[in-house]
């Protein structure tokens, strides 16, 4: 019995090390979203031109990508061709122009092309706060019911699209 007591520290230590071992394989910088598996926060935003814009309801019915971008964002031009390709493959991409003057966003899209199905202008940044956006670009994947299923921080790379996001979109399409 007494021996067991003296064994306790070393046993506790072994357990701890196992946990550290697992922890070592994780990336400490990865930031999961609080919104995963929750409905997209409600919003209804105007567009960057008259008659544009969309509300949360527009996301229902089909899996979609919601991309937070801005003309002032340095990484967005890098992501832009990937978004164009995604839209070309028939997956709907919605855009939220974050803290961007509508005129600037229009110029930017006129220069690079517009892959977005609809664009909402979040000039005050209020909606981005609800979404928990930490920087542009950020992209949310929503399912048919309009729930957030995945979040990508930073530009989407072609590899990430091919390897992770596209298969996820296909799975979401197959869901009832």
């Amino acid at each position, binding site marked *: 019995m*007494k*021996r067991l007591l*003296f*064994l306790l*520290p*070393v046993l506790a*230590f*072994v357990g*701890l*090390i196992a*946990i*550290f*071992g*697992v*922890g*070592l*394989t*994780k*990336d*400490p*910088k*990865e*930031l*999961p979203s609080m919104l995963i598996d929750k409905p997209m926060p409600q919003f209804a935003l105007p567009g960057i031109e008259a008659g544009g814009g969309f509300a949360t309801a527009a996301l229902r019915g089909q899996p979609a990508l919601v991309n937070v971008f801005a003309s002032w964002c340095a990484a967005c031009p890098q992501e832009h061709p990937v978004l164009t390709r995604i839209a070309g493959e028939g997956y709907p991409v919605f855009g939220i122009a974050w803290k961007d003057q509508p005129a600037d966003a229009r110029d930017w899209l006129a220069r690079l092309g517009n892959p977005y199905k609809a664009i909402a202008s979040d000039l005050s940044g209020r909606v981005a706060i609800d979404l928990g956006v930490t920087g542009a670009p950020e992209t949310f994947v929503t399912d048919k019911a309009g729930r957030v299923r995945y979040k990508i921080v930073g530009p989407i790379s072609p590899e990430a699209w091919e390897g992770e996001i596209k298969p996820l979109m296909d799975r979401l399409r197959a869901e009832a």
Partner: protein
Amino acid sequence: MFAEIGQFALILALFVAAAQAVLPMAGAVRGDAALMAFGRSAAELQALLLLTAFAMLMICFGRADFSVALVADHAALDQPLPYRLAATWGSHEGSMLLWVLILALYGAGLARFGDNLRASLQARVLSVQAMISVAFLAFSILTSNPFARLDPAPPDGAELNPLLQDPGLVFHPPLLYLGYVGFSVAFSFAVAALLEGRADAAWARWVRPWVLAAWVPLTCGITLGSFWAYYELGWGGWWFWDPVENASLMPWLLGTALLHSAIVTEKRGSLAGWTILLAILTFSLSLIGTFLVRSGILTSVHAFAVDPTRGVFILAMIVGATGSALALFALRAPQLKSGAMFGAVSREAGLTINNLLLMAVTAVVFLGTFYPVVMEAVGKKISVGPPYYNLVFTPLAVPLLLMVTVGPLLAWKRDSLGVLARKLRLPALLAVVVGGGIAFAAGPVTAAAVVGFTTAFWLILGGVMIFARRWTGAGGFSWRLVRTTPVAVIGMALAHSGLGVTTAGVTAMSCFAASKILVMRPGETTSLGPMSVTLARVHELEGVNYQALAAEFSVREGSRIIHLQSSRRFYPVSRNQTTEAGIGTSLFGNSYIAIGDTQQGPGGDGLVVRIYRHPLAGWIWFGGLLMALGGAASLADRRFRIGAPALRPAASPSAVPAE
């Protein structure tokens, strides 16, 4: 060339350490005096080699030799020389070198000042010490070589993070390392005692000064770090429960427990197994503290370059050191002779309760720090913040603090609750009256404030009572007793009341600190509590390697007017910004002003100004210094330097309450 000399010295030190890890141990097993003596010379040689290596790295920094990669990454030409030299340990690689250097210096200290140690024990301790050295030297050379060359050499380097270009950084890491690494000696003593199968009063008497030698700088280091965060980070906080802060607090808590349990082992021969376990755990937590943040397991504001390969190496070292020590403990500790029995109410029991509470507090901090790692292992990402610590830490800390004053009043071996109650009745009443009175006088009274101030005053009173008790013998107060007060007793009184001073500061800061953020333009005045703050003017400043926007404030409180300058510095080389808060200090509190960006206010452009009123803030750090001073006084007690007699009657009751 200097870099190469340093590199050779570092590698040579590794070989010396390898020999030192094996030969003295073999000598101790076989009773070979020559092999045992080799340990002493090896320890000194190792320290000499590492001093050389460290000096060489410092020369590289001093000469701004950008062909050394580390220098190029952490020093710039227009950086003032003192900060360039301090950058030697401002990086991961450099701080590792400092780590092994301090380890070797402690080893050399053991060799030099350990003449009164049993030769076989000293040899074993030096061997264990060298095993740790081997691991860390290998880590330094293989994964974090400070002397790696850069070709081609850049014309100028990237500067050290400006936040770290501060006198605080010059001393903060070395002090912490002196603490962390110092606990390695206690660890080595513990392992050596397990190997020898002997942990008696004499053993504890040898360990204790080494524990103190680590505890004092660690206390200073934590105090300084907290103070540095307060004045440099510009948000007026002094403790953030950040993983790295916790990592320094945990060894401190356990080190404190170790100090006290070693007293029991020394005076009464009991709790030897417990003292050994604490020694192992304290150093293990120091290892975890220094290294976990570098492994990428935890994120922290203090993070060094994160590298998973280093993480694996570090984990392996922690497994090697702690794992084998704990296994040895499981194997050998049950055979250790346990000392004299003691009653449920006695100094020993009091110290045991103090130990258990310290252990519980450490466990709480440990859980808070590592719970995110545990949760991540099962796939969830969370962070643990101040609400957890406030909720769990405080209820454990209060009884612990209350016990601090009770402990020294207890008699060894056996005491009675009745006698104790008679001794404590008056002081307790006084503490409640004074503590409650302060809380009432200070503002809206809350339970937390009353408890906090009462506890603080109770602790300070505890320090006074230690003297009162020491100075009054059977025949009442006597000057002879005052004159002969051992330094260690003064040390204990200082440390215990220092804890009270810190408690008072923490209570005041938690309950009565006030703050205000607003946009101000020159000439405007605002008030916060009894303080009235006027922004006098805003102007530009040019520093050695930075530009600054400075704002001059005049702060009036009562009839006292002080002038504060608060600035925001921009360092062009590293494109970093820092805030330099304007802090007006007084005995009863600080006024603290930090400035932010220029912003549009209701009446035109102004400066974002944050004003804080921090009652008793300085007490937090002053108390820390008192504790360190107490530890240092205790260390200076000459009784430590006299060798313990080989056979000391373990149960001899001391005539004078010595501690």
